């Protein structure tokens, strides 16, 4: 049974824009992306929206729905009150291109800055052997669909454009954690560069990245905090400092 839904869609580009009210039919079981497509088909033929799989696996239809960063294809219209107006805007941490489409290339630049996996030098292709228990922590992070909702909600860059050059963001902290926890990764200074080059220390653990992750990756608890602790290991740990002093004395 179709009913009418009040929708407010942000329309515009980098120069100007605003929220436009529309009324659109909605059927039982539909998601926000469905009604956006109906608006596009019936009322706003030039409405720009990025989408692909409609199954919560490609991460394309990231936008802000009633102010919350979400995937439009995974947000049920029925999760809102029937009389509620649903407001849809582009991601507010990235430059807008047109309507609901933003330029997320910041994230691809950051991805290129993360040092790649470094296998043991004497390991030939096909010879890598790992136990499940050693890789399961990293596997959680491989669920990431790169929707960049975590990047969008992170206040370090959302509220401070000037931090973008020095802050990789939660999506790339899980990448760093994945590699640092990888049993065969041989790169030595991953912790130090995470802190000194990728801005791990700028994160203040407010957990918004975890709250918005559609894959329910425990970004803060399982990646960022463990990485912060690994940084403490090499820079601030009292027991290790003491042990280091003893070792130096022995060497002397």
């Amino acid at each position, binding site marked *: 049974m179709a009913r009418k839904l009040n929708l407010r869609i942000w329309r515009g580009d980098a120069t100007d824009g605003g929220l436009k009210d529309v009324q659109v039919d909605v059927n039982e079981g539909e998601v926000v992306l469905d009604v956006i497509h109906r608006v596009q088909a019936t009322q706003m033929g030039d409405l720009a929206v990025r989408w692909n799989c409609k199954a919560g696996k490609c991460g394309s239809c990231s936008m*802000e729905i009633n102010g919350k960063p979400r995937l439009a294809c995974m947000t049920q219209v029925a999760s809102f009150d029937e009389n509620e107006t649903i407001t849809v805007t582009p991601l507010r941490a990235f430059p807008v291109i047109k309507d609901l489409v933003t330029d997320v290339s910041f994230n691809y630049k950051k991805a290129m800055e993360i040092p790649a996996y470094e296998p043991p030098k004497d390991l030939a292709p096909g010879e890598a052997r790992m136990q499940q228990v050693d890789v399961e922590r990293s596997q959680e992070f491989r669920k990431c669909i790169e929707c960049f909702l975590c990047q969008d909600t992170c206040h370090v860059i959302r*509220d401070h454009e000037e931090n973008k050059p020095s802050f990789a963001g939660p999506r790339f902290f899980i990448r760093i954690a994945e590699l640092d926890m990888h049993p065969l990764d041989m790169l030595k200074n991953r912790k130090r560069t995470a802190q000194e080059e990728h801005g791990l220390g700028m994160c203040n653990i407010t957990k918004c990245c975890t709250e918005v992750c559609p894959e329910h990756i425990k970004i803060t608890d399982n990646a960022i905090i463990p990485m912060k602790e*690994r940084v403490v290991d090499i820079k601030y740990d*009292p027991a290790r400092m003491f042990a280091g002093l003893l070792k130096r004395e022995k060497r002397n």
Partner: protein
Amino acid sequence: MSGVFSPTRAKIKERTLRTDKWWLEPAITFGVLFSFVIYATFRAFEGANYYKDHLISPFYSPCLSEACVPEATIFGFTPVSAEIFNFALSPALIILIFPLGFRMTCYYYRKAYYRSFWLSPPACAVAEPHTKYTGETRAPLILQNAHRWFFYAGLVFNVFLTYDAIISFKSVEGEWGHMSVGSLVLVVSSTLLWFYSLSCHTCRHTVGGRLKHFSKHPIRYKVWTWVSALNHKHQQFAWYSLAGVAFADIYVRQVATGAWTNFYFF
């Protein structure tokens, strides 16, 4: 103009378009933590009503000052002078930095107070009021990295508070094998503190999280899985243990002032 109002971003004048009660959680957190800080400050400076009949307040344990009630000390060990620079120092002020530091640098409380006190951010996708942000990279917030130091100190405190809970199983006359409401209060309080410490992210890292090969350390891996299970509830333990400590102190104070009678079960 920075942040969500930067020139290249979508032109939206509202700081947030959230329609839910996003302000409620930080408001409650602020109210509870602020109340605790006020109460704890009052009690730390009070310097009295912290001991009665083998019950000692967790705010004053271990009691290391010469000003301590003799029965409240650990075997009479009082290495700290009662006065510093002619200022009478409450025994609580000597030690409270350790549990306070543990909670201040705790990964959960950081989230709680950054959101509710510093509004950085007040809630997810709600623009913060600050024009600059450097996170935990500079003083004073770089001191958050001292959490591990406070974690170790917190474990020592837990041992003292467990000892306090054990000696509360004495009668007023000092005979073992008795139990009062006060014993129950101190046991619950110290148990919650152990859960809070053992569920801590630093504990999780220390017991096994730092390992690259769990398969080479099966016992540490097992312990890590247990601590990880507790870690999921760290937020709850943080609040429960805070409430437990506060209530234990209120209870001891009420008993010490004579307002409440410590009822003995046997």
